[in-house]
């Protein structure tokens, strides 16, 4: 049994279900990130765990004990709020010391512990300042200090970095990670930033509309998204998704999409869940880094026209409009065209990335040194080992877990 268990927990705010979590187990010392878009119930979940909110039904179990009726203090949790919630009229020292004073800890021990924490967080020189007279990053440290000083059983952090500027966010991110490594306190961290989640988490819990969509290690949710939502939410740029028709020919399964035609290799077929049959329509997913683009490729899966070159510096991307080939152009793209056009545009609404009927934009990493020009005709090939297939109706993945190694 985990250190913390949410069992059939549900929270309603006047008839609106904000959170519904059937089973979530968190192990001692784990760094768990609750990840999801705004309004999906992350904060509510955290507040339920903290004891600032009580569940409409279900049990919150800490160390094998149901703690529903216990106050945050009795649960021995510490929370870092999104806007830090430092007491503005108190000096940093008193901000950190308050929860020890409330406990009537002897003065000299308070002093020792406050200084110890301040040293750990590099805020010793700020101890006599007021929060208002400090930068966001410094306030953030104080908020962390206030949480750490009492040695809580659980750290709860609600988007603690979202008020910081981009650069500071990266610094604090790694500091939080280091802090966790050092203290080993079980941490539940809320964010809407998938990158933050990937970097920090031992395991990510992906929430949408108050429900858990997937729980797994960063690698797991990246490599094996259980549904279209997770597939799109994790990874940047977003995973490419294309509506495809499934056809069999000579015992092979073929995917036919807009400007795209590819034979599914046998090892993918063995990973198809259930009886091994694919439905007539699927959503094909592939990450930009797993799409090879070039002027002329061997074994191209399709062709298209470059519409946009995205220069990020470190890595560059091209947007390729598939199914849009220049006049007089022949080749594989042309061949598949006729077969697919009639199916385009009526794919079930599983969040497929079709810009408009008849064409699909495919984002791909651009590895050549030169810049791609808009209007340029290119061919592309998908890395078979990293394609995903989703059911267009339910959005669920059709593949069982793929090979772990990359």
């Amino acid at each position, binding site marked *: 049994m985990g250190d913390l268990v949410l069992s059939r927990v549900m929270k309603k705010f006047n008839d609106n279900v904000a959170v519904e979590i059937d089973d979530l187990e968190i192990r001692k010392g784990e760094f768990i990130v609750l990840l999801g878009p705004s309004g999906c119930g992350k904060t509510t979940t955290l507040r339920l765990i903290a004891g600032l909110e009580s569940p409409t039904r279900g049990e919150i179990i800490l160390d094998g004990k149901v703690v529903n009726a216990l106050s945050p203090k009795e649960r021995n949790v510490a*929370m870092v709020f999104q806007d830090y919630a430092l*007491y*503005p*009229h108190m000096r940093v020292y008193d901000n950190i010391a308050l929860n020890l004073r*409330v406990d009537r800890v002897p003065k000299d021990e308070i002093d020792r512990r406050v200084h110890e924490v301040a040293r750990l967080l590099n805020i010793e020189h700020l101890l006599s300042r007021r929060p*208002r007279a400090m930068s966001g990053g410094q306030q953030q440290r104080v908020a962390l200090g*206030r949480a750490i000083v009492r040695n809580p059983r659980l750290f709860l952090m609600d988007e603690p970095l979202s008020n910081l500027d981009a650069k500071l966010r990266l610094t604090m991110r790694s500091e939080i990670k280091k802090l966790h490594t050092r203290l080993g306190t079980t941490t539940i961290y809320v964010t809407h930033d998938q990158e933050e989640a990937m970097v920090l988490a031992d395991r990510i819990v992906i929430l949408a509309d108050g429900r858990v969509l997937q729980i797994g290690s960063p690698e797991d949710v990246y490599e094996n998204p259980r549904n279209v939502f997770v597939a799109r939410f994790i990874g940047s740029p977003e995973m490419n998704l294309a509506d495809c028709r499934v056809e069999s020919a000579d015992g092979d399964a073929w995917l036919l999409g807009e400007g795209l035609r590819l034979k599914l290799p046998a090892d993918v077929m063995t990973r198809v869940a259930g009886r091994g049959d694919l439905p007539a329509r699927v959503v094909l997913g592939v990450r930009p880094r797993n799409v090879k683009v070039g002027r002329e490729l061997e074994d191209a899966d399709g062709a298209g026209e470059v519409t946009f070159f995205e220069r990020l510096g470190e890595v560059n991307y091209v947007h390729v409009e598939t199914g849009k080939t220049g006049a007089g152009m022949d080749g594989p793209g042309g061949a598949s065209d006729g077969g697919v056009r009639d199916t385009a545009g009526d794919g079930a609404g599983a969040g497929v990335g079709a810009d408009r009927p008849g064409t699909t934009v495919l984002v791909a990493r651009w590895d050549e040194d030169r810049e791609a020009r808009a209007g340029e005709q290119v061919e592309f090939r998908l890395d078979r080992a990293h394609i995903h297939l989703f059911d267009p109706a339910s959005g669920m993945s059709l593949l069982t877990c793929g090979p772990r190694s990359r």
Partner: protein
Amino acid sequence: MTREIDCTSPGKADSGRRGLSRNAVREARDFYLCILPWLVGFSGLTLGPMLVSFYYSLCEYNILQPPTWVGLANYVSIFTDDPLFWTALYNTAYYTFFSVPLGVAGSLALALLLNQAVRGVRVFRTIFYMPSIMPAVASSILWIWLFNPQYGLVNRALSLVGIKGPLWLADPVWSKPALILMGLWGVGGGTVIFLAGLQGVPRHLYEAAVVDGATTWQQFLHVTLPMLSPTVFFSFVMGIIGSFQVFTQSYVMTQGGPLNSTLFYVLYLYRVAFEFFQMGYASALAWILFVILVTFTGLQLRLSRRWVYYEGDLRR
């Protein structure tokens, strides 16, 4: 010169009249035009009379004859030769000492109660505020009845729990406490201000305090009170200024009696001015009160740096 340049170079405007751009001149003209009504009112109705009264305070003046200069004679005799001045000052200080802290605490306590999310809380807020809009004379007459030793509601209520109430307004010992008690009737006015202050306390601070393990009382002590300190301060300053000028109650209810026990400063001043027609002497009394209040307020401002927290204040 364009407006943009004006904005980015305030030094230009400071460099004397010559440096003023047309815009700045126009803005200055508009500014004085806008505050003109107030300026006229202030100099004609406040500043002028104040200066005149200061002059009178150095004169003997009985309205019928023109004022004659006596120098500091009025002030000297107030301090050395006027037991009623000291009585009035003592009564007023007594009243202030009890009524202001009680009033502030009462307003705050009431505000905390009326800040709860209870059904019908708006109705209660209205009820508690109503006494503050009642004319002082009307409520004074009402309270004469409430304090009536035989038939009054106050003593009736006390007799129910077996206490024989005092004579209140007729007893020199109880007359001031009676008026202080009556003053608490109007705490609703301060409550409104505290309610506004309470709305401004971030909810997150309470949650942080709960997570820190603070009890309700500790939350009040460590969050509510510090966050409301500007309001508390304001209430104290205004309360002291107001209660040093207490007049209507004693004028209507006790006429300063019994045995001058409710002879408050302003009531005494009023008598000197409009019953004995010693305008010079009364003006001197007024100026002494003015100096007392300015001193008190200044002292409070100074002390406030120790305990009042202002949002956005960067002081240590």
